[in-house]
């Protein structure tokens, strides 16, 4: 069964450094998302992406964050200058199969996550 893959599984970086988290969504999906889960807290929505542009973002997704689909397969989340409070598990997800796109609810398919540790 196709799956969402994320790399790396664990990233350690120093405060102020830039990080790029990478995701390969399911190939025939149309919508892409980033969520994060700070240790001990809820899974929170960051941003969604459709048709090569951001479709929605939360207040967490400030100017430090950006997303990109640089080619036909990768979907990246960049944090420009990391802060200690950016330490979290970051999940990529995708939804809506191209061939079966209907106005019914297409569930999110998640990757295994990237654990980001900012020191």
């Amino acid at each position, binding site marked *: 069964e196709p799956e*969402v893959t*994320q790399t790396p*599984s664990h990233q350690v970086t120093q405060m102020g450094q830039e990080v790029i988290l990478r995701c390969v969504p399911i190939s025939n999906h*149309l*919508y892409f*998302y980033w*969520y994060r889960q700070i240790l001990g807290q*809820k*899974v*929170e*929505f960051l941003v*969604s992406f*459709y048709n090569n542009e951001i*479709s*929605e973002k939360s207040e967490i997704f400030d100017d430090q964050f950006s997303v990109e689909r640089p080619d036909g397969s990768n979907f990246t989340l960049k944090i420009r200058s990391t802060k200690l409070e950016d330490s979290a598990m970051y*999940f990529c*997800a995708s*939804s*809506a199969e191209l061939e079966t*796109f*209907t*106005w*019914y*609810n*297409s*569930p*999110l*398919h*998640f*990757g*295994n*996550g990237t654990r980001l540790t900012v020191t």
Partner: protein
Amino acid sequence: AQSVTQLDSHVSVSEGTPVLLRCNYSSSYSPSLFWYVQHPNKGLQLLLKYTSAATLVKGINGFEAEFKKSETSFHLTKPSAHMSDAAEYFCVVSPPNSGGYQKVTFGTGTKLQVIP
């Protein structure tokens, strides 16, 4: 606005006994509801989904959930717990008929412990 409440942060059951993980939702419409499971160091795997069809939904690994509109609940059950069921479970709510795009809200999660 939508929200979901998972009433128990931890549930402990003995192997072979029933599992009940509770979830209540709040929504101004009839939402879509999902249960996801997260095993240690793994991603979020879809267990089952309710999208206004049958109110009793069967999922993978013997889990099922019943949508009860009158109680605004979507509790997850399994008749007999297995050691491999030990994980964290998330109840998730989404607006109905949102098409391919999902703006979901997660519950805080319930950690299930299975005692041999």
